[in-house]
């Protein structure tokens, strides 16, 4: 058996809040051999990132390692001196953060940031490191590897930046790299190429890695073994294949089962029925930059239309056109057969009330200085004219509808709620206007899978009870599968394909739909390998999109 590179034993971490130390990681153990990849998974707040950082002997401000050992190649990092750590970090242990865009210094060129660590640690000279950087860029299949390093971070795309960051972590040929959710912020098609290149380069240099993510399908592709964390506790650890085929603990099973929620396809809409919302031939532009070209689709009563596409495909812009925030240049929008004024300022209260919106980031969609009662009470008062006791009664019934206890939550501020609860408040605020139609803009993409499933179920229940129509904007095809009745696929501001869900998930597809569908990671650990074989290494992600 090979020598263990990293040994973490009984690791306990405390965080300071309200003047006391609270334990946030309650004893985690794991070992990592050279060249081995461990996946840490769990919901937000499970302590994944905290454990990942502690593997470098580092804790965030306001946290401390209270017990346990982190032994890297025989050196105990918990009580190592600053000098010893400085020798290791950035040289033998590297870190890849979730948001490459926020982690690169926007004022320096990529290659200058790339060479910093090797030069600082005396591994290579600046010229050697630059040449090596280009080699790494080529290995990671970045376009134009000789010159891309001379660009600034804002001049390359998100997926490319994430790969440049992986190259930077590799620049000193470390023994251990910690990947903290490196693909979470990326589109599915971009995610694939980042995953493929990370896996390839980790294998090539025989680097050990800790891969932190909340996406099971992703970790299945990357890791040799998986460790599941829940609220700072270790749930179970096993070899990837064993873990996927035969999870032991109930919690793990529930994580595995999340993706199974699916509503049956509703009967097709009869022709001749007046749609609730009808978008016809809409063309829109931001200033002079055109973003939507001739977009048309209908949304019928009690149906969910999912609008799918990558970022920049015009999904959210379509929503802005419907709400009137961005009046289209051409085309018109009908509500119940009547044309709506294109600018929201020209719409009357009744028209505004009928179409409501739920936002992706509940954090920015709820005024942080207002209590839940005020947030939901405002539309009740504004549209229904209810005040005093009647308003309170209505708010209470809305809170019950979204499955939150009114007496507990009425006086809370948004900051005192969890992400899923905030999103429920967003739903209640939309419901308070008693609308016919709700636009859901990526409502579940910022949430953990279990929480997201709860929100989807709630939306489905409300639709059945109140006969609502939804326009569901998302880039996640699993969500589409579970909730949509009809699907609209968008690319570059155009509708590529549309139709009932069942038809859309059955071949034949439009080539772009096909690419999107096949890019969604599956729980099968061989999925990525097979996909790469099928498409060929040079024909994934951006490259594949570009060829269309």
């Amino acid at each position: 058996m090979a020598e263990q590179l990293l040994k973490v034993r009984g690791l306990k971490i405390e965080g300071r809040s309200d003047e006391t130390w609270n334990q946030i990681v309650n004893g985690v153990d794991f070992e990592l051999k050279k060249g081995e990849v461990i996946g840490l998974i769990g919901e937000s707040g499970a302590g994944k990132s905290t454990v990942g950082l502690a593997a470098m002997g580092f804790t965030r401000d306001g946290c401390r390692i209270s017990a346990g050992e982190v032994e890297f190649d025989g050196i105990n990092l918990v009580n190592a001196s600053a000098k010893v750590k400085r020798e290791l970090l950035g040289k033998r242990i590297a870190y890849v953060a979730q948001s490459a865009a926020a982690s690169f210094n926007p004022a320096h060129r990529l290659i200058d940031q790339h060479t910093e660590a090797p030069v600082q640690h005396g591994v290579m000279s600046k010229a050697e490191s630059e040449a090596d950087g280009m080699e790494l860029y080529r290995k990671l299949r970045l376009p134009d590897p000789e010159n891309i390093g001379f660009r600034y971070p804002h001049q390359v795309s998100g997926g490319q930046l994430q790969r440049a960051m992986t190259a930077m972590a590799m620049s000193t040929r470390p023994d251990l790299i910690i990947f903290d959710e490196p693909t979470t912020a990326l589109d599915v098609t971009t995610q694939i190429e980042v995953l493929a290149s990370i896996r390839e380069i980790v294998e090539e240099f025989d680097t050990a890695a800790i891969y932190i993510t909340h996406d099971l399908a992703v970790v299945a592709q990357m890791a040799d073994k998986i460790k599941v964390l829940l609220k700072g506790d270790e749930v179970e650890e096993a070899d990837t294949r064993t873990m996927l085929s035969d999870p032991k603990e109930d919690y793990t099973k529930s994580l595995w089962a999340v993706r199974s929620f699916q509503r049956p396809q509703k009967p097709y809409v009869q022709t001749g029925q007046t749609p609730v919302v009808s978008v016809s031939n809409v063309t829109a532009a931001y200033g002079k930059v055109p973003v939507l070209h001739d977009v048309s689709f209908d949304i019928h009563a009690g149906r969910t239309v999912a609008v799918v596409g990558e970022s920049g495909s015009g999904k959210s812009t379509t929503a802005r056109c419907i709400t009137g925030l961005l009046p289209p240049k051409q085309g018109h929008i009908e509500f119940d057969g009547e044309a709506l004024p294109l600018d929201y300022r020209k719409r009357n209260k009744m028209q505004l009330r009928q179409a409501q919106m739920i936002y992706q980031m509940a954090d920015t969609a709820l005024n942080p200085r207002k209590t839940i009662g005020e947030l939901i009470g405002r539309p009740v008062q504004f549209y229904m004219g209810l005040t005093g006791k009647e308003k309170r009664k209505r708010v209470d019934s809305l809170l019950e509808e979204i499955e939150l206890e009114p007496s507990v939550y009425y006086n809370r501020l948004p900051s005192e709620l969890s992400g899923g609860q905030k999103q429920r408040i967003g739903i209640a605020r939309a419901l308070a206007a008693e609308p016919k139609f709700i636009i859901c803009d990526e409502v579940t993409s910022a949430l953990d899978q279990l929480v997201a499933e709860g929100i989807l179920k709630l939306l489905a229940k409300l639709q059945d009870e109140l006969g609502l129509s939804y326009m569901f904007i998302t880039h996640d095809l699993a969500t589409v599968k579970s909730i949509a009745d009809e699907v609209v696929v968008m690319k570059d501001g155009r509708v590529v394909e549309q139709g009932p869900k069942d038809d859309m998930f059955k071949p034949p597809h439009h080539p772009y739909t096909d690419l999107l569908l096949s890019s969604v990671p599956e729980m099968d650990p061989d999925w990525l390998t097979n996909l790469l074989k099928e498409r060929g290494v040079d024909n994934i992600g951006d490259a594949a999109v570009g060829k269309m």
Partner: protein
Amino acid sequence: MNIFIAIVLWLAAIAAAGWVFRFVGQKVTGNKPLFRDMSYGVAVGYILAAVLLVWLGWSYVLSRSPDQTIANKYFFLGKAVEGFLLFAASAWAFRIFGRNVGSAGTRKLFRSMPLTASFGILTIIIYAIVAIFAGAIAPYGQEEILGAANVVPGGNPAMGGNPDYPLGTDQIGRDILSRLIYGAQNTVGIAFATTVLAFLIGATLGFLAATLGGWLDQLLSRAVDVLMAIPSLIFALLLMTIASAWAGSEKGLLTFYMVVIIAVIDSTRVFRLARAVGLNIVVMDYIEAAKLRGEGMGYLIFREILPNATAPLLAEFGLRFCFVFLTIASLSFLGVGIQPPLADWGTMVRDLAQFINFAAFAPQVASAPLLAASAIALLTVAVNFVVDWMLHKSSGLKE
């Protein structure tokens, strides 16, 4: 000994002591992380702080020396040390008082309050009481001319003081203590009114510009740019000269003009801040949601934007108050602000300014103009302490 050689020797000694301090610390504590990871610069910093503290203590001892020439040399430093200790002690006592008296809410507030904030609050309370009840507290009237002129502060007859006038009298024989107390009423009251007015104008227009954008934003912002391009004190001086011609002998009217002029000039700074903060808030989804609900401009500005902009505006309020206060004092010092015989701290500093020349040999005499100056300084510091603390609380920063 040459002063440069002395400085170099001192620095060398401190540098060496820093190294020794760290080395000994490592050996004695068995290499505890505090000493192990201490950088050399930090170690020198500790030593430097210790040396300064010792010097301060020794100087204080000298300021109490029976030999008048030595004591005079260290007079102000001694007073400063005494003042600092007195303020610290009273702030500490006030905090203890706050922790044990009052509702559960205020007690909880005091429990997590830093000493600086409790000092600030105490000072502001005292200033407010003094300003409101000036007529009852002051021993004499602010315009009352008493018998003796130029009585030295301190109330010690041997030094030229008079126990009837503990802080002395000015050149025409008015009691300085009484004028300080009335000055609180005039200066602080007017400064407060001016700052509030500046905020009303600046914040409303700033939020309006941020929300509406377009030509209104351009118009307001460029107008503000023009006003800001002119040095503010000179501009205020210019306008005040015009205003005094308009007001003629109406002194109340002139004060009103001064409030408006300073408020308008200072509102330009508030406008910029409010607009910048507002721009960050109007892009939030909750503003979009409110717009799509069909809410009016008033609701948007005062119910959606304002609550989220209070923290930076509050910080600015504290600073702005101090600047306004100093502007009024400066204008009064220059003779166009608050008009005599009304007592005002700025005017008092100007009137007694020449006594500062006595600082070297008769520090008691020289302290006369410094009394009003320190009244200004104390309030400025206190307001900023409180604002810092409020900011810290509202930003939710930990430790």
